């Protein structure tokens, strides 16, 4: 068995009475950063709880580092969770709170580890103020510090950036990316796709309790073959260029927008990419802009979720 950190779900389902929250989900997540995406109510939080052993699958298995996080408490020491709900904080300071978690994990130097974790998330360990007085963003960072204090090899973060300002977000995104490149298995859920794109390109998309897509989102885009790719082109000779591209069979539809903009639909993005420059040169058309319109994560997300 490889000792790379891994999280494996096999045929996992979870229902609450008649409500099926998660339905037959299987995936295998290794080191690096993987984003878990999905509309609200898709079952992401329930899935997270099962990954950390906080909930039991109604069916199927979850294995973290080869073991069942519910049965094997030792493996929970290798997991860090940032839950989405507002935790009820006692009147402890950040340092006390994180040290407490460190002690619960059996660390030998809880205070030092707590300080280090707090500094990593950009908080001052010496701040004596009690947590309930902290702003939402600060409480959020304390949660992340608490999840990291025991240096787990698997980190599960449910909406970790809520309430944070842009700088704080950027800092944490950098932190997660770094942890991923250090070989940790980081699973993050977020609704801000622009950020997710920055953290990494591996995604798991859940929709209506099921797994709708898995893998690198750029590759996923290529798989969306029943959807033509849309590309926006700005040129000084739109009609000539459009006509030539149509003749070359590089596009299936063309829309003219204003004096200089073309929106092209293509069934073969690769072919279009190879055709457009030579054709433009041939027709003496300047190319001011070539921009794919839905190849980003949001385009993929929309497609996957709306099927």
């Amino acid at each position, binding site marked *: 068995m490889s000792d790379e950190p891994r999280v494996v779900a096999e045929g996992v389902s979870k229902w609450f009475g008649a409500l099926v929250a998660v339905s037959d989900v299987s995936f295998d997540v290794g080191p690096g950063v993987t984003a878990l995406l999905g509309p*609200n109510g898709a079952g992401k939080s329930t899935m997270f709880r099962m990954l950390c052993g906080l909930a039991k699958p109604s069916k199927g298995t979850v294995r973290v580092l080869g073991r069942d996080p519910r049965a094997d408490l030792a493996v929970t020491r290798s997991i860090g969770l940032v839950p989405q709900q507002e935790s009820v904080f006692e009147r402890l300071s950040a340092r006390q709170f994180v040290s407490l978690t460190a002690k619960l994990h059996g660390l030998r130097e809880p205070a030092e580890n707590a300080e280090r974790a707090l500094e990593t998330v950009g908080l001052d360990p010496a701040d004596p103020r009690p947590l309930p007085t902290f702003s939402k963003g600060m409480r959020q960072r304390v949660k992340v510090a608490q999840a990291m204090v025991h240096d787990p090899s698997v980190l599960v973060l449910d909406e970790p950036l809520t*309430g944070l300002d842009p700088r704080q977000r950027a800092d944490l995104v950098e932190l997660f990316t770094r942890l991923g490149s250090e070989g940790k298995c980081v699973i993050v859920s977020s609704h801000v796709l622009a950020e997710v794109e920055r953290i990494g390109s591996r995604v798991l998309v859940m929709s209506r309790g099921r797994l709708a897509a898995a893998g690198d989102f750029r590759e996923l885009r290529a798989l969306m073959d029943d959807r033509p790719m849309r590309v926006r082109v700005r040129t000084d000779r739109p009609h000539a260029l459009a006509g030539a591209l149509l003749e070359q069979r590089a596009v299936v539809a063309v829309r003219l927008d204003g004096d200089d903009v073309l929106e092209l639909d293509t069934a073969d993005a690769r072919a279009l990419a*190879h055709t457009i420059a030579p054709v433009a040169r041939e027709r003496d058309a300047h190319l001011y802009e070539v921009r794919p319109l839905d190849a980003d994560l949001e385009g993929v997300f929309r497609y996957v979720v709306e099927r």
Partner: protein
Amino acid sequence: MSAVPDSEPAFERVISARDVTKRYGRTVALAGLTADIGPGITGLLGSNGAGKTTFMSIVLGLRTRDAGELTVLGHDPATAGIEIRSRIGYAPEHHDLPAELSASDFVRHLAEMHLLPGRAAMQRANEALWLVGLGEERFRPVGTMSTGQRQRVKLASAIAHDPELVLLDEPTDGLDPLQRTTMLDLIRRIGTEFGLHIVVSSHHLEEVERICDAVVIVEGGVVVRAGAMADVRQGPEGLVVEVDDRVEELAALLREHGLEVVVDGSRLLLGADEGVHDAVRDAVAELGLGLRRLEPRGRTLEDVYMGAGS
């Protein structure tokens, strides 16, 4: 609606602040904030604790400033707070709405509380809820609603009484990606089609960039950058090029033609020199490469934000 540049002082601003100061004990929350906001949709950005919330509460007349001048919709909030607040719609950041009231009753009540006569309040509340896309759900208690629905209820309650200015605090908080797009489009519509002035306070720079005409960045209790979106982002123009492969070859060929090229991963960054577009087009064609992206590269709002206030 686009923002008017500062060089036209005759145009009436929605919010006009000069050297506004506010202290809480020894903490200085606002240290001489100067800004002109509106008309149109303005984004209010800043770190947590930078003074945004304090500024908004002073604009609403809920706290008094220690010094400086402030005009909101033509009035001073220190003396005409009530008048100002009757003309403002506000959607707070928190999702704490009275659980028992139906969305319909809630929006209607707030419209009435904003001085609309009973029948008018009922009609406008009804319309506002349709506009934000809440149909049958409007009769359900707010406590049973999802975050996405609550955000829309808040928005409806902010516009139902036809205010002159709408303040939205983190309107996309808790929404999933598709709901965010819908909400942003809705806000954009409200600001452009409906003609209401809007101030959006948000931590999501791409979203602000998407819908706002102008932006005000607050840091350390002062405004560090402000202006129309286009102006604020002005910077060295350039070109971003993405090709399928053989990036270095392309770079080399372009350099042979005398262009300055920087390779950034799978992308090339070029300066906005004369004839650069044609040079790229021809080089790509000559090498038989797949051209994926060719875009002007201005500064993003993120570049501006991270650079400001440091």
